[in-house]
């Protein structure tokens, strides 16, 4: 199993005292790793740390086994699709897409194709102000931005939450496709029905700590071994982890 994105003893403390970690997480290449946990478990914070947008208090983030101490280097190499994609003021989707394409040196043909696909999905021009788009539409823009230029490391925070079924299928398909191409993909979601469709490994985060991690086969014995339905296995693991985390 080739390690791609790794968090080693990562901690973070908010001004309100809430603490994440220490967290150890491994997201191998060519796999989708699902991050599950209740609201406020630290999923978004962990993804923002792995994406270089937040500097951890302690611990290290590694890419392909090498520590990346400079968080901006991490941000440059890891694509993050945030859960609440917010565009800078006074911009258009086309502006941000062009900036991203130029920054990561995407061939023009690929950019044009991505623009056309996104326009088709959104059903409107990319020159519209992002504030006039729905959250679902902004989420699709965010996924397109994250996957532009075939990144090797992708973090997606609730990427299909609130999307219509067709858009959701497309996002699931695109994330799976990227991971098949060799990328390391980490997805955070509350959707225990869809996660087994896309994810190869699961990590349960409760109260800022990892409570369980592994593939379905590895976590099945942890929940008794009698369950066979992937969603039920995840639900049971989730329930036990949350109850265990509260004790």
């Amino acid at each position: 199993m080739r390690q791609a994105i790794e968090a080693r003893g990562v901690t973070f403390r908010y001004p309100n005292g809430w603490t994440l970690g220490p967290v150890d997480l491994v997201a191998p290449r060519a796999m989708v790793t699902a991050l599950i946990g209740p609201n406020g478990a630290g999923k978004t914070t962990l993804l923002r740390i792995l994406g270089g947008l937040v500097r951890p208090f302690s611990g290290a983030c590694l890419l392909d086994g090498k520590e990346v101490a400079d968080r901006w280097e991490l941000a440059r190499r890891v694509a993050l699709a945030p859960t609440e994609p917010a565009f800078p003021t006074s911009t258009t989707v086309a502006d941000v897409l062009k900036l991203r394409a130029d920054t990561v040196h995407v061939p023009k043909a690929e950019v044009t194709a991505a623009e056309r696909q996104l326009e088709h999905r959104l059903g409107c021009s990319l020159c519209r102000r992002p504030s006039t788009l729905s959250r679902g539409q902004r989420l699709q823009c965010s996924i397109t931005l994250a996957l532009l230029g075939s990144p090797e490391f992708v973090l997606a925070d609730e990427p299909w939450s609130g999307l219509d079924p067709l858009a959701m299928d497309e996002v699931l398909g695109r994330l799976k496709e990227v991971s098949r191409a060799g990328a390391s993909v980490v997805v955070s979601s509350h959707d225990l029905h869809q996660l087994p469709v896309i994810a190869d490994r699961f990590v349960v985060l409760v109260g800022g700590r990892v409570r369980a991690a592994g593939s379905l086969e590895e976590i099945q014995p942890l929940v008794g071994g009698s369950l066979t339905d992937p969603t039920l296995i995840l639900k049971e693991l989730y329930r036990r982890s949350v109850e265990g985390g509260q004790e």
Partner: protein
Amino acid sequence: MTLFLFEARRLSRKPAFVAVFTVFLAIGIEQAVMDRTEPPWFLLFLPLFVVWVAAFDLSGDLRRGRLDLILSRGTRLSRLLLVRLLLALLVGAATTGLLSAPALLTRTIPWRETGESLARLVYWGALSVLLGLVASSEAVMLLATLTSALVVWWGADGCLELTGKLPTESPWRFFTFFSHVLGSFLPLPLPHGSDQAPPTFLEFVRLPVAILWLSVACLWADRRNIHVREEG
């Protein structure tokens, strides 16, 4: 360059900025053409526009996570700050050049004065980039206006009223000078040529201070978590 054009496009979509700047620029051009003996008064307030450009939406965008999409797989925050400063200085320097050109060409104002104007722009641009990380551009403009008014008042009457001494007399002359350098976007309000007044070239002291503010801003942006939202 891409980031610079991105930020320039954003600025051009700010209707309030475009409208106010255009009106002031038009008045300034008319003044420059009609009276070539001195630079238009608009140049005195140009640092406020530099503040506006350097700091617009920076703090709000950071606080609301609106820069995530351009920072992820994009640029480091310090680079964005440098681009903002560059854009602000370009707006300021181009306007200064345009409005000062008639007076400079007829040699009715010395080049040194234009140099001092540019030094003020650099200083306020750098300071605004730093303050813009935590405050809105409107707040920074208000701060600049208030501190400038205070410094002018201190130089005109305030020091004499409060201390019974002139602002150019010891021990107040250094306070007067540094409060001016740090807090005013207006030219030194002290009688030039007086033995007790600081020489005007000391306006250029703003340049190393500007480098200090800019370095603090870049280090803070790159090394600290600014506006990390309180969520788990």
